[in-house]
């Protein structure tokens, strides 16, 4: 570039004809095309264009003038030859320097103008058809330069600039008048149509370069915006509060703001708005009449809402937005006061919406900027200084301080896109929060439910434990009941309402001659065939147990008769009790026992009482009769009858005494109330003593007593054994015929017992009496005993005494030959244990 530029500084000045060869023209176009293609930077391209055109035309100054949106313009590129004309680069020219009708000609007719100041002629050439000129229909004709007198003002203007010849070719950007390519020369110069054609070609190439440059700029801006969106999006997608703030900072940076804020609308009345701030913020002063609004945010202020509703512009793409340039747009007073103390000069607010839901506001603030403009002349034509400037074109500086920066369309679009990202992110964040809340709520519910389940579980465990315990108790009870039922000696059975057996214990089944299983569910009444005490069978409906089931009355029954399976029967007594469940009779339980043995004992008792009664009443009868007669005085006391009655009374009194003594004695011995006072006694001594006491009676009956003594020590109650021996010997004497011998002997047996024998030669005892003769009042012939002074209790007493010594007593007898009474007594074991023989050897 610099080399090429150096070349340009060696112009072959004023050698038009030489330069305008086709070769050099092609070279020029080729170089320019290359320059345009080699660089995308417009400033470089434009600098090259001015250099090449000035070099081609050989004029003093070539410049590129660019129009601004307000129709003023600035010299953006310039090439000057040897300062023949002053530099205008960077200078601004007001809109009225190029009147709008001229600009229209440039735009619509593509007019090129050539001014010869000296001749005061202006030549104009159109690239498009000129409807006003009917004669210029062909291209050739169009290329003809039409000269006419130039506007004196224009001549004056150019003279003031020191220009004597000018060439102006419009530069188009698509359909827009972008600027002008201008060549000035300080001396008069003729511009040939060929030169005009070449400059036009250059201007066309410049248009292409501008289009390319615009495309490049647009691409750059797009890339920057995408980068900004990515940065902001990266912070937004992580969705934490800190990064929302970071996203806000990035957004502010991307939009070249000084600060900003994100206001998130509360989701419900209990929530508070969320606010993220960055940079300088407006300070909302509470209205005096509304202290309650002290803490509200500007987004919540009614005036803000009103302003938004009024200023809000809806972009067809996404959100609504509003802008305010505080030096040109007026905010409501309260808001204006909020911004006044700040450096904020412009506001851009994007309403954050997603799915028709307003989520909040993104607001970006910008501070004012200072603008410095270099003017070639005062833009205000009424200014008197313009006169001077017109003559001198002396530059001057315009400085605009703290000026609001305009929001341009692409910035608003970027803000909208970023706002959309914010909206989506906030929406997702709120969803996330809701999910979190729901999760928390769910977790809370799970926790509560778990706690409930745990409580239920514990309750269940307790219930199961209680039930198991109850079951164990029931089983234990059941087992106890079963044990009790099985162990009970009495028969126990249960009946249902129909009289069928629901349970029966083994004792009951055994008494009835059945197995328990045979009786289950059987009708008990038919099984046992109830008979009453008279032996008459009765029906189930007459059965007392039936009455129990029907009426609940407990029945105590005795002396009934039950059948056994083998058709034998037995007497029973039973009690039937209703089984109640919840106060309802569901059956009966019957407890019965076999009273056969008891009946036998009762009978024996009755018989005994009867016999005792008889035995007592009989002597009393004699006594009472005798005494009664004697005491009446109706019988002579001296008479033989009287004497006889006295004897009867006396004898029967004695008999009564003996009887009473024996009865009492027997009862005392049997009941154990009389203790056997045992000592070591010699058997032979006892035998001798017993025989001696009966010797006189025996002699009176002409009976001899033979003793075969045994010298051995016994462990006995001496008196009781003598009583026993006396009793047996007395009986033997009583029932022996005269002149016979009664023998008393003793012998030692193997098992340390001594066997005594009392033998008579009397009439003997019938076999059927041998078993019962030791029972009370069981004489073979009662009259015998009375004849012989007996009471009928002697042998019973003997048996009791022997049994109290651990011995046995029995009788052997042969009718008409005699009887032998035997009993056994224990040897003195202690004596034997001491190594001494119980047998006395010296005698």
């Amino acid at each position: 570039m610099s080399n090429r530029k150096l070349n340009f500084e060696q112009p072959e000045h004023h050698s038009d004809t030489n330069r305008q060869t086709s070769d050099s023209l092609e070279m020029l176009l080729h170089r320019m095309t290359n320059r345009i293609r080699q660089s995308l930077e417009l400033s470089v391209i434009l600098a090259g264009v001015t250099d090449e055109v000035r070099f081609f035309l050989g004029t003093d100054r070539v410049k590129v003038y660019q129009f601004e949106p307000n129709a003023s313009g600035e010299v953006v590129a310039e090439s000057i030859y040897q300062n023949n004309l002053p530099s205008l680069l960077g200078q601004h020219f007001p809109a009225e320097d190029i009147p709008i009708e001229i600009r229209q000609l440039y735009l619509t007719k593509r007019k090129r103008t050539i001014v010869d100041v000296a001749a005061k002629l202006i030549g104009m050439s159109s690239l498009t058809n000129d409807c006003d000129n009917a004669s210029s229909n062909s291209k050739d004709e169009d290329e003809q330069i039409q000269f006419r007198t130039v506007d004196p003002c224009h001549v004056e203007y150019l003279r003031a600039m020191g220009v004597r010849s000018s060439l102006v070719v419009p530069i188009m950007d698509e359909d827009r008048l972008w600027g002008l390519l201008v060549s000035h020369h300080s001396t008069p110069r003729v511009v040939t149509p060929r030169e005009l054609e070449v400059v036009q070609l250059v201007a066309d190439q410049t248009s292409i370069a501008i289009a390319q440059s615009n495309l490049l700029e647009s691409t750059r801006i797009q890339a920057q915006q995408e980068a900004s969106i990515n940065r902001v999006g990266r912070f937004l997608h992580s969705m934490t509060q800190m990064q929302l703030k970071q996203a806000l900072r990035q957004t502010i940076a991307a939009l070249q703001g000084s600060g900003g804020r994100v206001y998130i609308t509360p989701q419900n009345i209990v929530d508070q708005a969320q606010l993220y701030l960055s940079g300088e913020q407006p300070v909302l002063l509470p209205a005096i009449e509304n202290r309650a609004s002290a803490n509200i945010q500007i987004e919540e202020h009614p005036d803000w809402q009103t302003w938004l509703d009024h200023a809000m512009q809806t972009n067809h793409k996404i959100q609504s937005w509003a802008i305010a340039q505080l030096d040109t747009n007026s905010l409501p007073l309260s808001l204006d006061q909020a911004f006044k103390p700040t450096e904020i000069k412009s506001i851009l607010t994007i309403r954050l919406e997603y799915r028709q839901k307003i989520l909040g506001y993104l607001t970006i603030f910008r501070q004012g900027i200072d603008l410095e403009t270099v003017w070639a002349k005062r833009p205000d034509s009424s200014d008197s200084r313009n006169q001077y400037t017109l003559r001198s074109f002396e530059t001057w500086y315009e400085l605009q301080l703290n000026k609001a920066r305009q929001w341009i369309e692409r910035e608003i679009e970027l803000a909208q896109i970023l706002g959309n990202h914010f909206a989506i992110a906030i929406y997702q964040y709120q969803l996330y929060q809701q999910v979190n809340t729901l999760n928390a709520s769910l977790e809370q519910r799970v926790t509560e439910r778990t706690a409930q389940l745990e409580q239920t579980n514990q309750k269940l465990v307790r219930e199961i434990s209680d039930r198991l315990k109850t079951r164990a108790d029931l089983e234990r009870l059941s087992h106890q009941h079963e044990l009790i039922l099985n162990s009970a000696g009495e028969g126990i059975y249960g009946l249902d309402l129909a009289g069928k057996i629901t349970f029966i214990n083994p004792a009951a089944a055994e008494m009835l001659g059945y197995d328990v299983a045979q009786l289950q569910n059987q009708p008990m009444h038919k099984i046992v065939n109830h008979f009453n005490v008279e032996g008459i069978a009765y029906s189930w409906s007459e059965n007392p147990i039936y009455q129990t089931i029907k009426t609940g009355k407990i029945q105590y029954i005795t002396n009934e008769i039950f059948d056994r399976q083998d058709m034998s029967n037995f007497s029973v007594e039973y009690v039937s009790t209703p089984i109640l469940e919840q106060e309802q009779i569901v059956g009966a339980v019957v407890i019965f026992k076999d009273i056969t043995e008891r009946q036998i004992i009762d009978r024996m008792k009755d018989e005994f009482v009867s016999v005792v009664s008889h035995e007592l009443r009989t002597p009393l009868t004699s006594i009472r009769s005798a005494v009664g007669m004697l005491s009446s005085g109706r019988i002579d006391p001296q008479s033989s009858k009287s004497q006889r009655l006295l004897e009867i009374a006396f004898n029967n009194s004695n008999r009564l005494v003996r009887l009473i003594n024996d009865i009492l004695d027997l009862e005392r011995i049997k009941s154990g109330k009389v203790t056997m006072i045992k000592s070591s006694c010699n058997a032979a001594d006892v035998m001798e003593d017993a025989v001696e006491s009966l010797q006189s009676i025996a002699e009176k009956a002409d009976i001899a007593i033979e003793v075969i003594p045994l010298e051995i020590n016994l462990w006995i109650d001496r008196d009781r054994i003598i009583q026993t021996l006396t009793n047996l010997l007395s009986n033997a004497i009583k029932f022996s015929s005269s002149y016979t011998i009664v023998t008393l002997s003793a012998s030692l047996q193997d098992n340390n017992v001594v066997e005594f024998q009392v033998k008579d030669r009397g009439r003997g005892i019938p076999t059927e009496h041998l078993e019962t003769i030791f029972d009370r009042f069981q004489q073979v012939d009662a009259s015998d005993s009375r004849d012989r002074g007996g009471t009928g209790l002697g042998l019973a007493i003997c048996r009791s005494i022997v049994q109290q010594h651990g011995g046995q007593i029995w009788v052997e007898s042969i009718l008409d030959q005699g009887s032998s009474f035997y009993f056994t007594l224990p040897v003195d074991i202690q004596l034997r244990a001491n190594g001494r023989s119980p047998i006395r050897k010296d005698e």
Partner: protein
Amino acid sequence: MSKRILIIDDDDDVREATQICLEVTGDWEIFTASSGREGLIEAIAKQPDLILLDVMMPVMDGIETFSELQANVITQSIPVILLTAKAQPAEIQQFTQLQVLDVITKPYDPFSLSDRVAQAFFAD
């Protein structure tokens, strides 16, 4: 003609005391027997007007003797007073159900016995 009374009792003293009592208190002719069997023979032989019959006797007791008396045409119409040392109510009830004239419990008062015997004859 005096009434004739047969006393059947296995106890010698009772039999003798009763005989003396009746002989003293009434104009009655007394016979005695010491067992049921002997009493039956005497009853048939003597055909007394009244029999005093002891219940509790060995071999053949009073009840059996009474049955025999009842079974015999000769003796069946002779009134019988039972003399019994069995004095339990059930026993008394059992005896009164028999076709006997009276049941007298031992030990009896000799004059009461005499009165009952006299009543027997009076009723007759």
